[in-house]
């Protein structure tokens, strides 16, 4: 099993994996980066979307062997201006319901803002082909518009401080 050196969220990680292993499973099962979600494994739902050199890519369709020379960003990334702007807007608009698809939508949205800093509704419609069964589409659209504004402000706020840590009763 070959070793691959991957640049993920600015750090280099080495994994042993079969060449055809999709990046999704390398992230989730080999590197423990579970923020990237498995939805369909067929590139149709967008839950697994990451950024490769800043572009939205469905990681279930990208074999690890093809991801070695590029900059990979996942939902765990911190400090990226566009992603932080999207996070803040997501919190402001209270977008997430179950939240499972949102990592993919966030990565897609941040990639959209990179190429299209002021997207129209039609451009959002065209870019956000992710599936959300909770039906958060209207809030996603509002949040992208809000993030576009936030990203242009000097200091995009980073959202909320709640850790989400807990124990069982």
């Amino acid at each position, binding site marked *: 099993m070959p070793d691959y050196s991957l640049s993920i969220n600015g750090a280099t990680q080495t994994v042993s994996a079969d060449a055809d292993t999709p990046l999704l499973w390398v992230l*989730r099962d080999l590197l423990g*980066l579970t*923020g990237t979600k498995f939805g369909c494994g067929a590139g149709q739902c967008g839950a697994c979307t990451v950024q490769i050199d800043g572009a939205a890519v469905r990681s279930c369709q990208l074999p690890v062997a093809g991801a070695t020379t590029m900059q990979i960003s996942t*939902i765990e990334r911190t400090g990226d201006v566009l992603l932080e702007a999207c996070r803040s807007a997501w919190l402001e608009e209270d977008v997430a319901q179950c939240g*499972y698809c949102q990592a993919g939508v966030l990565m897609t949205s941040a990639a959209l803002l990179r190429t299209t800093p002021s997207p129209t509704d039609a451009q959002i*419609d065209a870019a956000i082909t992710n599936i959300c*069964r*909770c039906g958060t589409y209207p809030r996603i659209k509002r949040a992208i518009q809000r993030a576009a504004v936030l990203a242009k402000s000097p200091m995009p706020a980073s959202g909320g401080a709640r850790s989400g840590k*807990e124990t069982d*009763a």
Partner: protein
Amino acid sequence: MSLLPTNGARTNRRDFLKVGSAAVGALIIGIPSALAQPLRRLDENGVAVDDATRAVALAPSEYLRIDADGTVTITVARSEMGQGVRTALPMILADELGADWRSIRLVQATPSPQFPKLGTGGSTSISDMYQPLRRAGAAARELLVAAAAAHLAVPATELRTQNGAVVHTASNRRVPFGALVAAAAALPVPQTPVYDRRFEHPIVGKPMRRIDAPAIVRGTATYGLDVRVPGMLFATIAMPPVPGSKPTSFNRAAAKAVSGVREIIELPTGVAVVATNTWAALKGRTALAVIWNDGPNAIFDSTRFRTTLRTRAQTAGGITARNVGDVDAALAGSTRRVTGTYESPFQAHATMEPQNCTAHVTRNACELWVGTQEPGDVQQNVAKTLALTPEQVTVHVPLLGGGFGRRIVAEYATDAALLSKQLGAPVQLVWSRPDDFAHDMYQPMFAAQLSAAVDANGMPVAWRHRVASTAVTASFGDVYMQAELLGARDVPYAIPNLRVEYTHVPAPMKMGWWRAIQFVPNVFARESFLDELAAASQRDPLEYRLQLLSEKSQADFAAPSAAGQPAASRVDVDRLRAVLMLAAEKSGWHVPLEKGHGRGIACMSYDDRSYVAQVAEVFVSPGGLLRVKKITTALDVGLVINPLGLTGQVEGGIVWALSAALYGDMRFTKGRASRTSFAEYRVASMTDMPVMETHFMPGIHEPSGAGEPPVPAVAPAIANAIFSATGKRVRSLPITPASLV
């Protein structure tokens, strides 16, 4: 401020007072509670240990613990699947307590004698939990106020709680909850606390953002599939494509040859592939190339079955579920009769997170992590399968990546447990997306024939509603007609002669609960047909409904039925009328539209708790292309706990309904599900979104649920709008362009 001395207010009422030493010598008072134990935290090795910094606590109920540092810990006894219970339920308690919302910490309940009922479904979380949580908050508040009264030497009546402190306004003094914990914990827990609503609701009714949202947007929220246990393996399972079929052969060697595959294990439900990662397991599952002995169900064809169902709905012979007056005579005696047959297909849930469960079975215990709506059932079923006691089975409930009723049953949990037991290692079992589609518990296929006779004024004098469907309840035992006929049997319109009949036509696949359950097809049929009657009588559909909504409609509901079944919930027709009028007003019901555009209205009550009316505005092109332009919703769920979450639920419910109205259609060919990907089983996307406008009625009633009520009226409102725009009547779902040309 120093901790207060324990005062002497002990009583002999042992029900109220238990003083005992916890492991670290803390004084813990109240109802025996898991929360009364020192909280657990994960140490640097990921092992759960007692959190000794939280030794002294006030834990007057299983739902609440307040620590000396002021942290308020609230137990959430319902599963979070996106409906917002982990925000809304704590809001109720925190509001009555007067807590500082920023100091709230959550604990997710696990099945135990303390929490025997953790089921999440039927839009009941808010209505069931409102009183218990408010009571818990009020009891704790009274204890804290009593302790503060002693400390400040003022009457308790002069004190109130606010933002995590007891406040004495006259002297401008403020004692934080944490400083009162020790003294309050020594007092008897009041059993009938008085709700404090002398003041404004500090939290309830305010738009509160989702408590889990920060973790979600950082990718750190834990769903079932994100659970990681040291040493765990990953598995998937090849299951019979035709219900009841068995494997005749499979290529074990080929599957084991896949890099990373460890074991091939046959289970009663199929052939499992266990590997060191999910990808290897999925590849191994393909390599198995299982040959199945299809058996008798391989003849099932959903297109043919649809014809069968339609025929049964159009034929007498169903079981009568409600009978008022003499429908047959009234129909026979009328010259003005209207009849329509309505149909809807099987529907998949297609939760974004495929079904999964992580299990760790050791010699005398089993630990499970499963995003389920019924953790208690999982505990019981797994205990039975492994011959353990329920107490030996711990069920953790992480976040659910969508529930919608699918996760009321977690049949795969027993598979995960069996695999872990056999492997002697923790294992995460996940279904592939095609398997998730092919092994869903589907929304039933449905047909209903409605027949009515109208009088000279166009008002119905007879109403016969014949339903035939693949009963949901048959998957769980006997067919329970009341559940199959929700929205049909409880028709709220006053019609002197009325009969509702039901015929169960079995299908080989399992049926399940689906967001808004059988209200969805029944309300589609009822509200579409009512629109047909109004049209036939050239009456405005809104005015027609308002005229028919009368208490008289449910005179026969007062007593339990002869079969001993409880009386149905009585619809409050005034509340239904009010939402109809509000939806009409806000949608501009009477404002004329351009050619090709139309409005339609529909309404429903979810039991007697939640009331909704919706107006759809559509455009239909000459080529039959449908565009849903706007949905206006008027909702009465009583007191609104979280308006921000509630609006999200309404929008989500509408989108769910749009998916079903426009696309949802699971097909079976040769006994097999034939739409097993999102490419084949289409759901609503960003481009389908109408404008959604939501209005709430003032909350004068007890709060109720909203996860499902916004769903059922959407499809008939759209169908009625299409009729208004084009004169074409949609009687079959999903709505296809061909049917609109």
